[in-house]
């Protein structure tokens, strides 16, 4: 019989990819690991009811649209018609959602599917425009808007903090290295710090 297997280290998508480029000061990228996540897809004809149920869970109204709603430790992101990507800092997120949305939506665990980076720093916008084909100007992108789009061929779900100072990217974890390649090349002249989990 083999030795008992004891080391079940959980690794985030950016594990081992911390780095500092140049001054390190133009842009800071911090991995947000350990969040539970789920895709919520409303049953046929139940998008409004599912939004209401999500809103009840958060204590803040959720809409069927590309908007971010935060409530407590949970963030709900509209990612498609009748579809939300939900992040939560609680292990029971999927179970809680399944209970809250019984009969209204499918809840699929995606806790390990995404690698998440919080981007901030004085050159945030300058770096993002080198990859994003979206207008992040306040006139075009509200602080609670969510965008599902692509950067350098990598699919991203993007949202920002209320003060617009932090932009968060959730990407497929298998593409973490490729996203960093873009980030590093784009931020090199201004300096970049990546803090992986």
């Amino acid at each position, binding site marked *: 019989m083999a030795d008992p*297997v004891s080391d*079940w280290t959980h690794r985030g998508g950016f594990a081992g990819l911390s780095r500092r480029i140049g001054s390190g000061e133009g842009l800071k990228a911090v991995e947000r690991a350990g969040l539970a996540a789920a895709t919520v*897809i409303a049953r046929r004809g139940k998008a409004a009811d599912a939004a209401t149920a999500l809103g009840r869970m958060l204590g803040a109204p959720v809409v069927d649209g590309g908007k971010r709603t935060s409530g407590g430790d949970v963030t709900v992101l509209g990612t498609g018609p009748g579809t939300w990507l939900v992040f939560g800092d609680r292990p029971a997120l999927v179970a809680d959602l399944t209970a809250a949305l019984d009969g209204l939506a*499918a809840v699929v665990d995606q806790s390990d599917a995404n690698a998440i980076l919080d981007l901030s720093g004085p050159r945030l916008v300058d770096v993002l425009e080198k990859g994003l084909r979206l*207008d992040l100007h306040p006139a075009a992108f509200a602080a609670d808007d969510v965008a599902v789009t692509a950067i*350098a061929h990598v699919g991203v779900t993007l949202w920002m903090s209320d003060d617009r100072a932090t932009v968060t990217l959730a990407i*497929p974890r298998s*593409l973490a290295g*490729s996203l960093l390649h873009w980030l590093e090349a784009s931020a090199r002249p201004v300096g970049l710090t990546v803090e992986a989990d």
Partner: protein
Amino acid sequence: MTSHRLASGGLIDRATPIGFSFDGRPLTGHAGDTLASALVANGIRLVGRSFKYHRPRGIVSAGPEEPNALVEKGRGPRREPNTRATTIELHPGLDAASQNRWPSLAFDIQAIAQFAAPILGAGFYYKTFMWPAALWERLYEPAIRRAAGLGRLSGAADPDAYEKAHAFCDLLVIGAGPAGLAAALTAGRAGARVILVDQDFRLGGRLLCERVEVDAMPGPVWAGEVEAELKSLSNVRILTRTSAFGLYDGEVGAVERLTDHLPVTPAGEARQRLWTLVPKRILLAAGAIERPIVFGGNDRPGVMLASAMRTYVERYAALPGRQVALFTTTDDGWQTAASFARAGSPLAAIIDARREVPEAVRALAGDVPVFLGARVLDAIGGQSLRAIDIVGDHGRRRLAVDGLAVSGGFNPDLALTTHLGHKPVWSDERAAFIPGDLPANVAVAGAAAGRFTLAAALADGARLGAEAAREAGHTPAETPAFRAGDEPCAVAPLFHVEGGRGKAFVDLQNDVTDSDVALAAREGFVSVEHLKRYTTLGMATDQGRTSSVNGLAILAALTGRTIPETGTTRARPPHVPVAIGALAGLHRGRDFKPTRLTPAHGWAKEQGAIFVESGPWLRAQWFPKAGETDWLQSVTREVEAVRAGVGICDVSTLGKIALSGPDVGTFLDRVYANTFSTLPVGKVRYGLMLREDGFVMDDGTTARLGPDEWVMSTTTANAGKVMQHLAFCHQVLWPELDVQMVSVTEQWAQFAVAGPRSRDLLEALFGPEADVSDAALPYLGCTTLALGPTRARLFRISFSGERAYEIAVPAGYGDALARALMAAGRDLGVTPYGTEALAVMRIEKGHVAGAELNGQTVARDLGLGRMLSKKKDYVGRLMAERAALNEASRPTLVGLKPTVAGVRLRSGAHVLPLGVPPTAEHDQGYVTSTAYSPTLGSWIALALVANGPARHGEEVRIHDPVRSGDVVATIVSPVFVDPEGARLHG
């Protein structure tokens, strides 16, 4: 001070001398110079040899329209050919070389070509090198390239980095001359988001080159004040050194030269940035380009556009000649006389084709000799202009000159407005093409619109800037009125002077003469588009900026038509040359597309895996062990280890789709060719998916883990395609079905555990509490089990034909799972195996994969015909039932075994009957997959062969002309190993 630099004036920084070299000769210029202006200031005339005839050529213009002064810039891998000296910003260490001459610029042997001119006329290549075609590659093309080449590529990889960016605005202003500045300022002050681009390194456009005043300030001063104000506005972005090169649907492409003007590229900086500008409105204020006049010897170095001469004098304080004459048919040309007079070098003569010139214009000349109603017939000289022959009311006479300024009118730079197919219209009044039908969000201002005076340009800009601001929801305080004069700008069109003795060039860059245009017309190429292709007029880096209208006008005259009857000039992007590197940006070499890594990639790397690209993924191909010298050795070991014991393989790359909802069963029945609605909980089923045309799209398994928990797997290659197809089926075909689905490929790390000892390994992994017995988990069963801190999904499925399982854990535990499997299987001799061993085993087992699911096979071809349900409708059913797709003669899956052991089979080889010539008519199919089977001790193959299943036992010829293979093989069943399936269960 260099020989032709004026003692004062200009916008150069006299305190900053800059050393550079041209053809190896060290020279000095100043900050603010272009390479061209520095050459002019150094008295250098001869800058290149022409494309076809190798005639000596000089600088013609002062901008991007330059057809002659193309140089190789830089050295080594950074050498860039065909760079226009007029747009190269002078910088320390700039190393430029003339092109297209051998052995030296002054003495070029190939200049002899001009004496062979009668045979080098229009269509020369088409006529001469037609036949025999075989000689093209070997003889004609290399010879032509050597003779004609426009500069040389370095042949080395581009060492620079490039980047791309997107920017959005209410108003994009292209061109920072008076109109553009007025527009940007008006819209910017109103609060609109403005992007202002200019190809120059300094804002101002013609304001920098003319003696004019705006708001009682000299042009450059006013431009400087506007620039300062624009820079203070956070809603305005200024991009200098940026060329807008194309108008696309709703977007403008532009390239910003970030470091080309620096002696050394700063580490980490991109050389150029490719902008995609997304504006609500576009204002084109790109100005106009002066039109030369076609006459004999008009290519002699020293013949220059009149406005360019003025630019060199006013902006760069460089004198293009000391004995300069002016040949004009415009009022504007006379401004050059005024410039030269102010510079203390009055013109030698003014030749105006018009008989009458307004008094105010005449006054610009001072007391220079003026010949009205006269023309320049010939320019005379070799490497430099010596004299001109003029003809007019006063008869013919020769004037000794060293320079000739030419002004034939102005061509508004409208190329961008024509990129989407819109046409400019000819205005007789302005002797120019002016905007006609324009794209919806495009407006044109100033000289680009054919409004050639400064006051008109400023007024246009202010009006259109205010309009754009209002449209974006901003209210301009008031439209500013900029004070400036309406200088005289009349033109009496003259395109061509006939009767000269020398060659008269229409297109200097392509060496197209008036006789070439005449020849084309005689031969029936009377459409402008045909003329262009037949003579190459208007092609290459200058895109016909100085030649197109003249060519058109000459063709019109030859064919007795007006210019509008003859055609218009329309352009295609890019308007300026764009480096391929800029278009590629970051995505070159290995980074052309992103690379996906599995959660256990690091573990595989530690094991020394050799990786292979599999779609976007990198997968372990095999794991070499110490002492193994060749891949086949490693792969054979891995296969034997699995077939005799147990192996593990990372299959995380397979597509995984979660499905939920009351109608999943119905939905799967419609997208799969076989039935799924009957799949019980705890079971897995193999499924075949067809395209609507009946051909096989993909295969995979779907498991039902719970009453409403389904998970489909797809092949690695088709994961995205299948997801898109399912979304299509759901959203477009059957939106009434209550189904929810989402990709979970990223959520799960998945390993295959295969071999007769695989269950033993699972028992060790999961521990005694878990029941993985055959009773609890029979073949095609599935379950979930606790594993460490998480839960694993366990599927009993097999690709290898052995007892096998696939185990999935959340991706964050993928690395840990690999290590845990290795630890749990240590005593069993667990062996990691890669895609190569995986492929060997599936070929041994006759399982189809990508090579057989190649888009040309139907289920029947693959021996899977029995999977097609007759009881239901599904995507592809009706088309798959077509008779032609069900004929026995179709290439159908078989196995092949060479008759002589040890002989290798290769994929792609053709299958032929024995004893016939290897020709297409005898072709009976082809080899799709091959492997060395350790189990059989022989190479084996899967192939698609006509009537295949009926021919087991027949010997056929396996012919591989590309790799000189020719072997005899026996057709056998595609299932080489364990056809009864005993190992699967035992």
